[in-house]
């Protein structure tokens, strides 16, 4: 009735974009920047990758598609696109000290519009009948998994059947967790997020740390968008298909109490919650499925409330989250 073996891999591929998004957002928030532009950045990351691979596929339409270049071009385009978004956010909030909530929401408006506009333009350019772009060869390169995966049965299906970005996402999350917790750089970053005044007095360059964390965070989040298009959606871009996953990634940050290593499993849980409505037999009652989709958000709220009730100091949001830093202000 409930097919666990087919459910888990699908939950994982649902979870990977969330994992990348939340790892990026965790880094950003640890530096004291509440970047609500993550949904927009993930859109921009996705569409930049799509634009890159679209032109590469067009230029090699007659043959000569090299899978390695096919991966490299969208990958680099995605990083550049999301880096620019991150820089824009930093320039406005760190250098110009603008309000972070407002800047983030504007960035989301812009990013989603940017994605849908260029997506729509490319669809028109490709002259296709369908309202989507299909990048099958690039997606094939992104999705190719180890050849032994098929032979290993259940084990292979559960652990080895994913494209390389999925493993990269897990590695990034673990590395981010290590850096935040165990290195001097991470200590400085956390100091900037908790109390920029103190950090500044200790000789840590607050602006540089904020820029660095937010831009790297934006690039990681952008990869989440790329993974969604190239791997999960099999290289099919259609407007607004990405949906509210960006917000779910922000929810995941809270759910994991700002720890990317917990995020690895938590993102798969969220991915599972996101699709569990397809697996639970609800008969003809379609309405209940909508209630199941509520689950990730309700769970996040419960975690948010519980952590604030228990009031353990290591589980709190960074103390200066959302506040701009100006040295001459007390």
């Amino acid at each position: 009735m409930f097919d666990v073996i087919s459910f888990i891999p699908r939950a994982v591929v649902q979870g990977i974009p969330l994992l990348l998004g939340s790892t990026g957002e965790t880094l950003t928030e640890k530096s004291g920047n509440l970047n609500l532009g993550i949904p927009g950045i993930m859109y921009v990351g996705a569409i930049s990758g799509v634009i890159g691979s679209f032109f590469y596929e067009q230029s090699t339409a007659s043959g000569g598609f090299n899978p390695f270049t096919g991966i490299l071009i969208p990958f680099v385009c995605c990083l550049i696109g999301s880096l620019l978004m991150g820089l824009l956010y930093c320039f406005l909030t760190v250098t110009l000290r603008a309000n972070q909530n407002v800047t983030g929401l504007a960035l989301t408006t812009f990013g989603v519009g940017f994605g849908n506009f260029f997506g729509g333009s490319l669809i028109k350019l490709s002259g296709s009948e369908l309202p989507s772009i299909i990048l099958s060869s690039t997606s094939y390169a992104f999705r190719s998994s180890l050849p032994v995966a098929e032979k290993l049965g259940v084990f292979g299906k559960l652990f080895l059947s994913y494209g390389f970005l999925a493993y990269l996402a897990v590695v990034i999350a673990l590395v981010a967790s290590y850096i935040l917790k165990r290195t001097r750089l991470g200590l400085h970053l956390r100091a900037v997020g908790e109390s920029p005044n103190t950090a500044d007095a200790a000789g840590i360059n607050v602006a540089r740390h904020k820029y660095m964390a937010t831009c790297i965070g934006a690039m990681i989040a952008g990869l989440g968008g790329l993974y969604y298009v190239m791997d999960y959606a099999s290289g099919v871009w259609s407007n607004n298909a990405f949906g509210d996953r960006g917000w779910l990634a922000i929810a995941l940050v809270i759910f994991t109490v700002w720890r990317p290593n917990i995020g690895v499993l938590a993102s798969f849980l969220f991915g599972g919650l996101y699709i569990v409505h397809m697996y639970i037999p609800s008969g003809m009652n379609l309405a209940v499925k909508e209630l199941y989709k509520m689950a990730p958000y309700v769970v996040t709220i419960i975690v948010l409330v519980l952590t604030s009730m228990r009031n353990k100091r290591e589980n709190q949001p960074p103390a200066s989250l959302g506040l701009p830093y100006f040295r001459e202000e007390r």
Partner: protein
Amino acid sequence: MNKRTREPLFHVVKRAALPWYATWGIRGGALLAALIVCGVITSLVTGENPLQVFAAIWKGSFGTVRKLWVLLQNIAMLLCVSLAVTPAFRMRCWNLGGEGQALAGALAAAACMICLRDKLPNGLIILLMIVTSILAGALWAGIPAFFKARFNTNETLFTLMMNYVATQLVAYYCVVWESPKGSGNIGVINPNTQIGWFPQIGSYKYLLNIIIVAVVCLAMYVYLNYSKHGYELAVVGESERTARYVGIKVDRVIIRTMLLSGAICGLAGLLLVGSTHHTLTPTIVEGRGFTAVMVSWLAKFNPIWMILTSFLLVFLGRGASEIATKFALNSSFGDILTGIILFFIIGSEFFINYQLKFRSKAGKEDK
């Protein structure tokens, strides 16, 4: 940022308060610069004369009488949600849940229209709609407020999550109440009997909304500036410790203000269902809960200036969609233009609050 000389090329200092004409001059300059950039981008994309593009933006809002009414209606609804979130913002409590609170209000109003239509007289239903939707909006804001006041739970993230809970709840009821069966949406509620529809003033469909929102706007201005409550929440926003010291009950102020915030959002939802669309969809609020944050912030949380800023955002949005249809572009082009304009205005705030001091008698200070 700058070269490591003994003294940096310039440094940033906080400005004393500028006269109002200077602040609005800077904002106007930023807006003008943003419009020029937008015009250049649009003409690059479409190959049209930028002046024609601006003419199209103008026509999108003022082209016909009908468009003018739609413009006014959209301003009124956006202003209503913006007014709702403002008291919370003055208290430095980031209520990003306007979307969910308005949806909760809309859901309550639609529930009254659907479930009570054969049981009660029309007047009583309308009365119940008003009461329940305001209560529903207040409840949706009250839950995060309670935890904020009691346990200091982060209200930005809490209200953000409540938006999606509300969206899914509405999506659930859209399937439950679907008509015709199997369509997955509700359609116009009570199209023949018009039970629960708010009365029209003359032949102007939107006039009632506009009047209600105008009254709310004035009331909010008075509440924030001339009432004890308004003063208390401003003190809580400036410094919670000071507030506690002078004997303001901070918990109560937080909960009271958020309840008010949610109640007005509920009112916005009520107007959308009862008086405008007569239907319910998960996207009925159209992201106004988020746009309202920008409207309120751009106006520096002043209800009267908010009329102007909400006009600006609605005008740009409608103009951009006009460009999109006229030059056969994707309708998302409007979002890009809105985003660019917002970036400019957000950036310009820096020059209002801070000034650059150049190293010894540098002459080209142009801010």
